[in-house]
């Protein structure tokens, strides 16, 4: 996942699934503020149609922002950010064009403050640096517009002061939002590095125990046939024809166990060891996992983690039965495709509130992640390289 951007949405998909409420509130608030300010300064508006178009333009940009910030449409792209930014700048230009009377007050403009508020709303989805750059470009644009208007305004204020008045609220909101986003992204990255190290250390600490348990598994296989056989031969110190057959037989059985173990993927192991209702150890994987091309092993650690967390979360649902769970993986050209289907006896709302963070992580680590829920069947589709 080297192409991942330094945004909160992409570094912490699960943690940002709930930020949309804030984004939507700020976007709606921005439109509300524009409406109120337009109503208050209606007498200064010389071209009501242009002023109305300006508000409509802002509303359209805000709507776009609300739609694009859905966790189900993640990731929020740079292109989308620029489209929204351009929309708001156009609204600001139209607002200025609609108010070309000498009595207008720069402080009554809703445009720059709304743009600042929207930059804060964009915080979780785009890198801080990109937001700061967008803010700087907007500041130049707004400054230029203010200078052009300053000549026609009846005010004692020097034009430079008017420019500062116009851009300061926008820049302040922009910087505030950027510092917050940058800081959180920095904290998340620092934590991720620490978590990786801690988890590696823990695994290293547990290494001995795991080795012992693997050895125990082997010894269990060996002590049934091999150890008695070897001990017997050593005691007898003579090989008889029956020994040769027995040796072949034991070797074949060990080999077949080893081959079976070797062909079992992490996913099959996970299914067999997971709790919940349904077929248990030794049977579940054969029912649940269909991976004819053996592509489960191609998944990266991130991807395995996402699937593991999702499956564990689903298995935790009451009444979840592993018999209804199907996981299909297959080769598709140079990449691989996956499909997870499960029966969940829950409502649409519960599905989205309880599993949204896992879906967000899945979306961040897989390409073409799709969710389809026709009660009670949940179907997830994804692909990976």
């Amino acid at each position, binding site marked *: 996942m080297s192409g991942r951007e330094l945004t909160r949405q992409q570094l912490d998909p699960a943690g940002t699934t709930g930020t949309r409420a804030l984004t939507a509130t700020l976007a709606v608030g921005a439109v509300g503020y524009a409406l109120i300010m337009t109503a208050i300064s209606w007498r200064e508006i010389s071209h009501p149609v242009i002023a109305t178009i300006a508000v409509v333009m802002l509303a359209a940009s805000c709507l776009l922002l609300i739609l694009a910030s859905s966790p189900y449409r993640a990731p929020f792209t740079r292109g989308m950010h620029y489209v929204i930014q351009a929309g708001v700048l156009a609204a600001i230009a139209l607002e200025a064009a609609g108010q070309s009377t000498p009595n207008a007050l720069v402080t009554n403009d809703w445009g720059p403050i709304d743009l600042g508020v929207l930059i804060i709303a964009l915080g979780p989805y785009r890198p801080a640096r990109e937001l700061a750059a967008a803010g700087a470009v907007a500041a130049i644009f707004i400054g230029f517009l203010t200078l052009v208007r300053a000549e026609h305004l009846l005010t004692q204020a020097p034009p430079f002061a008017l420019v500062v008045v116009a851009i300061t609220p926008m820049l302040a909101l922009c910087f505030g939002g950027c510092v917050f986003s940058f800081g959180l992204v920095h904290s998340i990255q620092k934590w991720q590095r620490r978590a990786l190290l801690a988890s590696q250390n823990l695994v290293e600490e547990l290494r001995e125990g795991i080795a012992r348990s693997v050895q125990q598994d082997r010894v269990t296989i060996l002590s049934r046939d091999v150890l008695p056989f070897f001990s017997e031969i050593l005691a007898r*110190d003579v090989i008889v024809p029956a020994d040769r057959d027995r040796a072949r037989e034991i070797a074949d059985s060990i080999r077949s166990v080893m081959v079976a173990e070797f062909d079992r993927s992490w996913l099959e192991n996970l299914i067999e060891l997971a709790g919940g209702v349904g077929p248990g150890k030794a049977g579940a994987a054969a029912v649940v996992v269909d991976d004819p091309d053996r592509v489960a092993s191609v998944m990266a650690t991130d991807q395995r983690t996402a699937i593991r967390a999702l499956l564990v979360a689903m298995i935790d649902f009451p009444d979840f039965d592993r018999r209804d769970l199907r996981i299909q993986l297959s080769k598709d050209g140079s990449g691989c495709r996956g499909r997870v289907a499960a029966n969940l006896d829950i409502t649409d709302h519960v599905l989205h509130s309880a599993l949204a963070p896992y879906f967000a992580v899945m979306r961040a680590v897989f390409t073409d992640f799709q969710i389809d829920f026709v009660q009670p069947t949940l179907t997830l589709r994804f692909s990976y390289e």
Partner: protein
Amino acid sequence: MSLGLPSHLAPQAVSRWFVRGLHAIAFTTLSGALLITVAFQAANPQLVLWPAMIALLPMLAALWFADRTPTVFYSTAYLVVGAVCSFWFTATFYSQSVLLVASDAFSVALIKVALVMVGGPRGGVIKRVGWCVAGYITAEASVDAAVLLTGHTVEFDITTLLAFVVTTVVFVLNDRSRRLARRSQPLLHRAARDEELAAMRHRIEVKAAALMHDTVLSHLAAIANAADGPLHPALRAQVERDLEVLVGEEWLSDELLIADTDTQRDWRQSGLFAAIQETRAIGLEIASTGDLSAVARLDHETSYALGLAVKQCLVNVLRHADTNEAEVAVYGSEREISVMVIDTGRGFTETETSPDRLGLRQSVRRRIESVGGAVQVWSTPGRGTSIMIRVPAAQAQTNARGTA
């Protein structure tokens, strides 16, 4: 990794950076107010605005301290200094011409906004909103006092109220937005750790399977092919060792594999040398060529794995290739060591070998892949086989881990 901050760290980080974000807003608005004042003074040299500029400096300094050390003391100090300075600033502006007041009420609003952004020490939503309210009240009180004192009427200031409302809304909603993740985050962290453990277990199982193949399976095969009569002393010794190793020792721990580091650099102590010697003992003639000392650059685990893998290749030559001659060639580069095992025997097609034939898959390919190496096989039925085993040198391995 797609792991967010865990529940015990998230509130602190969010709170800390939220306050710093507020302070960035305060710095910007105060700087804006300063620039506006400078612009007015420059445009109207007859006015006395310089005290207003000076009033902003202690406030900027107090803000800097409150940002560096967000404690109750520094936050309160910022509010107190801010109250005095905003009074001073407003009084300076409002004691000038009426026209000026009409055209520049906004720079006063900027200072008030800077006070609303006080932030305060770390804490939850209620504390944070509390500091915001304190900032708002301080700002309104000090500025209104200055306005009244200079004989003007107080007008309702929507900008500051708006700043207060937006800040509060953002903080409350931001806090609520994390609730959804609060349940999922521990599960994600556990999944990540389980994944690491599963990967580790898998690596150990690969090792165990390869070891089992080299010992038990190999000796069972020897028994199956042995002649009737007394047990051959060599076979007896091997079987005895199997029993000891498999049951008695912790054969999967690294200690067993660690050769003496001082002697490990010696070719004669390398896994490859041992493999060649052992296969020679069972009747294969082996010509070893190339840069043999290069194997000294392998770490113990890789050297051990390489030795066992080459041994398996040589045993395969003896068993299946229908020849008793083979060549082992070693090439060393800075980053990796390549060993080529060549015979001019019967040859085979890898895909056509029986799926339960574990030798090449298990003892060679998996084993080498588990230490980060790669195996390539070229074999033509009737013309022989060449197996190229490439493993990373110890230095290259460290580098690769460092950049991963």
